[in-house]
């Protein structure tokens, strides 16, 4: 009996050895919120919740593996992973599955898979690898190379079309550049150039994208058309009030007024049913997770791990912020899911892989010292 307990204890030790408790606890709390909300958003459809839970199990296994590999393995994986991701994106462009007018998925036989999700990890990994390699001799040309490495997947994803994800991937690349020390002058210059280019880009945007931006500027423009989703989401949040309407009691949710309510707009469901208090608690959980990730980043031992962990952390924040800002009407509608909460297996897996990388970085912070 003692032996059995000792065995269990030993197994637990191995399992938990490289798992960061703080990160793990906050992530699972957010996932828990997600599952509870998903149950309500899918009109108490347990099948959807179990499917998400199954993805979670898979994501946790992958996270554990990533957390436990030798740090050198991550470095070595960077180039092949990036190359594979780009190839998969090309494959999507050539023969992907159409859903709702976008070609974003690859059918793998066992299920659909979104290569752009893989790129979320692959691009920061690739850039971190590149900057680590060039660490001693970093020159302006390296940033040009980096820009090309970023632009390629962004362009491929943008033409799926999936503007939201393309922007997010672009942001993840930009974060690496920023953390690698890109001059403020250049960043400001780029921002100015982007502003100046906007009128040139405008005619190239799809009608629905133009519509979304116009609607964002003036929501009353077309309340039953493009502004409908945004308006209904605001109504859901606002009518939730301070304490919310209670779990399973959101009228906006259950009477079909909310679009995409178990994916991109799941936060509106949460905010309607749990109110301002619920929203604040959820923000706090994100803040804990991101805060811990920032600490891990600050303590990372190599340039590679610093850049990688930093980019993953900032991406986490960006996803959460953009989604909640979009649902609450602060930003135009872009297709960005709420991390760890929105329904979707691929996103959940890539997020947990990101957490696994952070845990790996944390576990190896003293082992490799430059």
């Amino acid at each position, binding site marked *: 009996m003692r032996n059995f307990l000792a065995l269990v204890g030993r197994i637990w030790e191995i399992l938990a050895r490289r798992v960061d408790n703080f990160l793990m606890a906050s992530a699972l709390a957010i996932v828990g919120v997600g599952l509870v909300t998903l149950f309500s958003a899918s009109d108490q459809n347990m099948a959807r919740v179990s499917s998400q839970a199954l993805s979670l199990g898979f994501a946790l296994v992958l996270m554990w593996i990533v957390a436990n590999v030798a740090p050198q393995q991550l470095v070595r994986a960077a180039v092949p992973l990036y190359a594979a991701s780009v190839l998969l994106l090309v494959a999507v462009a050539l023969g992907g599955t159409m859903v709702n007018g976008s070609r974003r998925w690859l059918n793998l036989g066992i299920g659909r898979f979104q290569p752009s999700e893989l790129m979320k990890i692959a691009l920061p990994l690739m850039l971190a690898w590149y900057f680590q390699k060039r*660490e001693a*001799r970093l020159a302006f040309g390296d940033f040009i190379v980096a820009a090309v490495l970023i632009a390629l997947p962004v362009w491929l994803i943008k033409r799926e079309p999936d503007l939201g994800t393309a922007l997010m991937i672009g942001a993840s690349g930009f974060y690496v550049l920023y953390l690698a020390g890109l001059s403020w002058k250049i960043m400001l210059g780029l921002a100015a150039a982007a502003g100046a280019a906007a009128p040139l880009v405008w005619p190239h945007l799809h009608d629905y994208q133009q519509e979304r931006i116009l609607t964002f500027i003036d929501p009353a423009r077309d309340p039953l058309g493009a502004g409908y989703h945004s308006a209904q989401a605001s109504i859901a949040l606002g009518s939730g009030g301070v304490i919310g309407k209670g779990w399973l009691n959101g009228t906006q949710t259950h009477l079909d007024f909310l679009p995409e309510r178990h994916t991109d707009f799941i936060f509106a469901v949460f905010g309607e049913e749990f109110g301002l208090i619920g*929203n604040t608690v959820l*923000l706090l959980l994100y803040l804990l997770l991101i805060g811990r990730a920032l600490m891990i*980043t*600050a303590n990372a031992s190599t340039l590679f791990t610093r850049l990688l962990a*930093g980019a993953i952390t900032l991406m986490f924040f960006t996803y959460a912020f953009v989604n909640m*800002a979009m649902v609450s009407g602060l930003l135009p509608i872009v297709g960005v899911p709420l991390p760890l909460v929105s329904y979707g297996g691929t996103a959940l897996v890539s997020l947990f892989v990101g957490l696994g990388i952070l845990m790996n970085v944390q576990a190896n912070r003293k082992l490799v010292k430059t």
Partner: protein
Amino acid sequence: MRRLFVKRGRPFSALEPPELKNPERELSHFRRRLIAATALIVLGFAGLVGRFVYLQLFQHQHYQTLAESNRIAIVPIVPNRGVITDRNGVVLAQSYSAYTLEVTPSRVKNLDETIDELAKLVDIQLRDRKRFRRLLEETKNFESLPLRTRLSDEEVARFAVNRYRFPGVEIKARLFRQYPFGEIASHVIGYIGRINDRDVERIDEWDETANYKGSDYIGKVGLELSYERELHGTTGVEEVEVDAGGRAVRTLSRTAPTSGNNLRLSLDIKLQQAIEAAFGDRRGALVAIDPANGEVLAFVSKPGFDPNLFVEGIDPASWDALNDSPDKPLLNRPLRGAYPPGSTIKPFLALSALTSGKRTATQTIFDPGFFQIAGSAHRFNDDKKGGHGTVDMTKSIIVSCDTYYYMLGADSDIDVTHDFLAQFGYGGKTGIDIEGELPGVLPSRAWKRERFAGKNYREEHRKWYLGDSVSAGIGQGYNAFTPVQQAEAIATIANDGVAFRPHLVRSIENVKTGAVRDIAPELRHTVAVKPEHLAVVKNALIGVAREGTGARAFVGAQYVSAGKTGTSQLFSLKGEKYSAGHIDERLRDHAWYLAYAPAAHPRIALAVLVENGGFGAQAAAPIARAVFDYYLLGRAPAAASGEAPHPADDESD
């Protein structure tokens, strides 16, 4: 170039060797960047908190209201329209519930495609499509419009299974109006139809707009129109929770509708049927009244129409057939047909003369077969060649002597005559409870002045001439009365000068409480006439039916009836001898018969008009006989005398 990548501090020289790289400096530089990022994160989350506080705390009320109005819809529940029955409770108009396939055009992307798809599940005919198109043009887009009515159970089931494919298409239970007797009494009952802009104005005037929410139909003609507010009922309200697609999810509260009141008519549908059968293919009108209280026992306008055609909107072919027919089946003849009374006016003129003192009962004239105004060569001919000889008042009515009344007309003041006759209901509305009654024409000097007041007329047109009085003496000239007025007038004689307002509705039943409100007889007028004068005329009327112009139709009757024949000329004879056989059927004279029975204690008084029937005695009187036989003896009339009568020249009117 290195300078480009550092944030602050002394810029590195481009020439500085890379191996002098400082890890400590690198790390602190990285950390500063991380701190800047952290600040951004905190700022971003603070912004979100601010937005949430704004939405969920400060704007909560506003959004709460929006969410409520999003989810709650007020749905009117249309009440059951009242049932119309005859005096014995036989149903003449009723509502029944049936399923309809309805389309809300604003929620359907491609109407034609949708209808084509629906046609695969449900039988949709070309005329359904046409009617739908017409409704589409008439109404607003967000209303739900019926595409197919009266679906079978199988069709309902087939659509229900496929409903998800058709957003904006629904099955609804609707109330339909049905008139089981079709053409019989169609002009009395009328019909309902879809509410149009004019009806909306009417509803607005009644201040009933809220009560008609959800109602699609309203009375258009007949009793359905005049008793609309009794029949309609009170609309109920259901508060339902709806989803984003507008479909009701559950009921929150419900106020039941109150059914409209039931109407029980004084009409006897069997009598009505018997009369319509007696008319056969002939055109005309008959109004029968209970003289003691004004109850209308029969109200016939031939030809009729099938009111069921109108309920769902009549198809153009049927409409054209009805509207363009020379028989004018849509004309409510008893109410709106004004015909010269012909000789039927004579008993009233006789009574007028007795009352004014122009004649006594026994005073006689000599009838040479014509009348001439002093100093004029024009002869007003009598119907009988050679004349009736010596004629007193009683004989003048029994044989319908024209010369007697030419003379009386010439001796009378038209205004005095007008005022006396007006007491019987002529020249004004009788007040019968169907809308649209016409007043007809009862001429007087003032009337003629008014009638020819227009600029196209000169003074000589407006003046009253002696010749006018002579023509008026035999009910020709300007006189034009409706069958309702004629029936009311003869009923007034039958009831010894006491006139009740004629009415079709006998009682009104409140379905909810079961309370029955009887329509009390309404005294319209009491004619100022002496009983002995009345007795003279009434006796003469009995004589008409016994030995006079109406006698042939009443041979062998088991009751004593009283009546007066009449023929109203359509065709100016210009002194020539009228020979009905030689002129166009539609230019023949109209035949009248006014009658009541039993003569001593009248239970029924009626006016019959047969258009282009020729002599009243021949065409109209037999119908009166059939009505009396049925009503007084309970005897079904012998096979309808449907064949057109053969006018005989020797018979006088």
